[in-house]
């Protein structure tokens, strides 16, 4: 493994950085927060630059590079929701320039004639109030609807740049024509593929509806918690490959299959529940993995910004006759922030790389990425705000935007603790050797280990 940007990726990063510096300077972000300036022109700039066309799985690293820079800049547009939540759930529907959002829970589908009626309320939909189109995950599959079909109300948020909305579906009629056929299930195609870069969207578009979610039969917890809003008999014909007549699925099942926790307790629980029963890739899907990775890399970008601003501050602020950055207590906090950022960034790009390569470790990598980003923001928020002193406690200081962006990411799509639980469950269920640790399960099993004290090798001095 060579975990380094190649020459093209470095060029891409440079050009993204230049564009962000030009189009999205701190003054613009400030104006959006303070004067409700319209981020519309900025959204059009991202479109003009072609950044909303980065939807092929093979471009996941390039997309991640954009997201990291936008996370740094506290981008006030709906880019993240559109590209990493809506687009993968609506592969046939995404169009450059069209803002999208994803409704991951709270909506049920009731059969009605040849289609379904969608009902329910999702309380915290990222960019739900300013999306042109919404992808909605239901027990009958993923559908897309235009914004006019729903009622969306922006919820006042602590982060002044963040758009979260309460989105209500009140008898919205959809048909198979609105079904996206998004990949929301454990992705065996991916698991079997080696490292060829094919367009995964093509695969998922041709697969039959959301049949993959029938494999979410392991999601017992989901069924219990969310109850049966939707019965199997009624969706026959649209969902293939389901089991017997007892098949009762809810939106939570699909989320389970999609593996996307939503931050509500039910969503999170089913997200974790999926991992316990399954193998390493249980719950992995392109939509889930991209959403988690996108959020993680955005958080990493925001954390880098906090670190940069903190370093600037501790170099210039003097107390007791010296820059506060010369005090070791301050240095060590900064060093811990740096290590946390490096770790989280490595895991975030690793997740992007596994998506791009169609690597079977994709699901695990996305879980790790989101968990590590969560751990990182915790260290960075705590140390960063502390080192600013009262200066960081003000509205005028721009560090607030990056701090809030980083912390907000932790609150969406499941937090670090939830993802760690999932990771441990997957790994411990995944054929790890049991019994005496010396008894086998590694190369050379059966042969007593021949070594002389790892710590000597770990620490030569």
């Amino acid at each position: 493994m060579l975990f380094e940007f190649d020459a093209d990726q470095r060029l891409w990063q440079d050009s993204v950085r230049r564009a962000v510096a030009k189009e999205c300077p701190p003054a613009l972000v400030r104006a959006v927060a303070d004067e409700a300036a319209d981020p519309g022109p900025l959204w059009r700039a991202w479109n003009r630059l072609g950044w909303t066309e980065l939807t092929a799985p093979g471009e996941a690293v390039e997309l991640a590079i954009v997201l990291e820079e936008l996370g740094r800049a506290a981008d006030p547009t709906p880019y993240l929701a559109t590209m990493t939540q809506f687009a993968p759930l609506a592969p046939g529907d995404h169009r450059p320039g069209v803002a999208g959002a994803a409704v991951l829970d709270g909506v049920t589908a009731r059969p009605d004639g040849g289609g379904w009626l969608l009902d329910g309320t999702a309380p915290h939909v990222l960019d739900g109030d300013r999306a042109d189109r919404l992808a909605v995950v239901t027990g009958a599959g993923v559908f897309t609807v235009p914004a006019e079909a729903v009622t969306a109300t922006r919820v006042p948020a602590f982060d002044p740049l963040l758009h979260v909305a309460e989105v209500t579906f009140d008898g919205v009629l959809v048909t198979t024509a609105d079904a996206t056929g998004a990949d929301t299930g454990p992705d065996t195609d991916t698991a079997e593929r080696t490292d060829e870069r094919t367009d995964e969207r093509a695969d998922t578009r041709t697969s039959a509806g959301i049949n993959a979610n029938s494999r979410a039969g392991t999601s017992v917890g989901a069924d219990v918690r969310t109850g049966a809003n939707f019965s199997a008999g009624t969706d026959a014909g649209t969902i293939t490959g389901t089991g017997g007549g007892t098949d009762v699925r809810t939106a939570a099942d699909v989320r389970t299959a999609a593996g996307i926790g939503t931050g509500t307790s039910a969503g999170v629980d089913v997200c974790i529940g999926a991992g316990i029963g399954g193998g390493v890739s249980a719950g992995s899907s392109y939509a889930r993995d991209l959403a988690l990775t996108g959020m993680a890399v955005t958080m990493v970008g925001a954390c880098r910004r906090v670190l940069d601003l903190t370093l600037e501050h501790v170099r210039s602020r003097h107390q007791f006759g010296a820059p506060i950055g010369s005090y070791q207590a301050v240095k060590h906090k900064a060093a811990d922030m740096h290590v946390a950022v490096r770790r989280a960034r490595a895991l975030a790009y690793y997740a992007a790389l596994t998506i791009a390569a169609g690597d079977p470790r994709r699901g695990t990598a996305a879980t790790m990425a989101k968990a590590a980003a969560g751990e990182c923001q915790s260290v960075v928020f705590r140390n960063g705000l502390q080192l600013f002193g009262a200066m960081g406690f003000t509205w005028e200081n721009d560090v607030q935007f990056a701090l809030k962006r980083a912390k907000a990411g932790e609150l969406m799509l499941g937090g670090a603790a939830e993802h760690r639980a999932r990771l441990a469950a997957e790994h411990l269920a995944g054929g790890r050797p049991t019994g005496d640790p010396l008894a086998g399960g590694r190369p050379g099993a059966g042969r007593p280990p021949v070594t002389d004290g790892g710590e000597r090798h770990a620490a030569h001095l």
Partner: protein
Amino acid sequence: MRLTFDGDVESFRAEFAAFLAEHAPDGAEAAERSRSSAHVPEWARRWQRLLFDTGWLLPGNPPEYGGRNATLLQQYVHLEELARRRIYHSYNPQGLGIVAASLLSFGTEEQKRRWAVPILRAEITAALGMSEPGAGSDLAGLRTRAVLDGDHFVVNGQKVWTSGAHDADVLLTFVRTDPDAPKHKGISVLLVPTATPGVTRRPFGSIAGADDLDFNEVFFEDARVPAANLLGDLNDGWRVATGSLGHERTLLWLSFAARLEELAEDFRPVTPLDRDAYATLLMDAQALRLLGSEALARADRGEQDVAALSVLKLLGSEAVQAASERALEAAGPGALAHPATTAPHAHLHLEAFAAGWFERYARSFAGTIAGGTSEIQRTIIAERLLGLPRK
């Protein structure tokens, strides 16, 4: 960015794996344990010599020094294959990794022939004499004195923590040769045979047992060392110190990655908190590999960034420690037993993983103390990577 190596690296790996399958010593052969970091049992000497002769010892070296001019990435997979099998290429790690490496970087041809080759072939073993009672983190504060007297240096002073010195044939000894120069500029390096009159070694127990003898105090009383044993130029020892350590550290993180992967196999989480720590361990292991491979790619292009390696050392050593602590506490009262609860191993078995969890956790502090403490690493990161002002 790529998830796989090029074919030449993978075929190199396969070739070495095949070699190991055929030649790696089995348990019966390897029954005698190494009891200190410079004690190499007879079987391990044969093993190391075989590796030397076949060019598998340090593949990055030229053939005359136990290698085959392998690339850095090939060296990486070589170590990976060894770690996967929990086997080492040498049971005298300081001798191979630091003393011989320093000799190859800074030694004369005669010194390489006289000292480096025998160390590499496990004919003799070596230990590293840097630290002193008054010079730990502040290594440049060392005071052991060496005065040139004709064609000999006369050495007086004391070293401490000198791992394996009592079993070693030669000590790479850092001495002060110019007490009037600024402290980094008056240091030289001498190869001191342990049989030299005036050299006394006193091994002492570690936290793992009064009879776990690796640490030594070494006393020098008018020890006369041939001037030909000076490594590098007079008063240029700091360059040797940073050079050999820098060389060493390019791949040092790998041993922490290996330790983490062993922990992931051995740690049995019980409670939700254990499982949480277990997940952190998996993430640390993965992150360390990713960051390490990034450092490797840079080094492969000839960009040496020693300060960046501090991130790897800090992350790796602290991750091992945190996971070991959790594994210890998860083991409960069973972990009170010493030496081993996991297998019926004899008391002097030094395998970190074969030891009980209590011992494993205690030994994890070697990682956060030796080779630059975690605090020193944080300061290096802050000053050299983040540009914060020195005091």
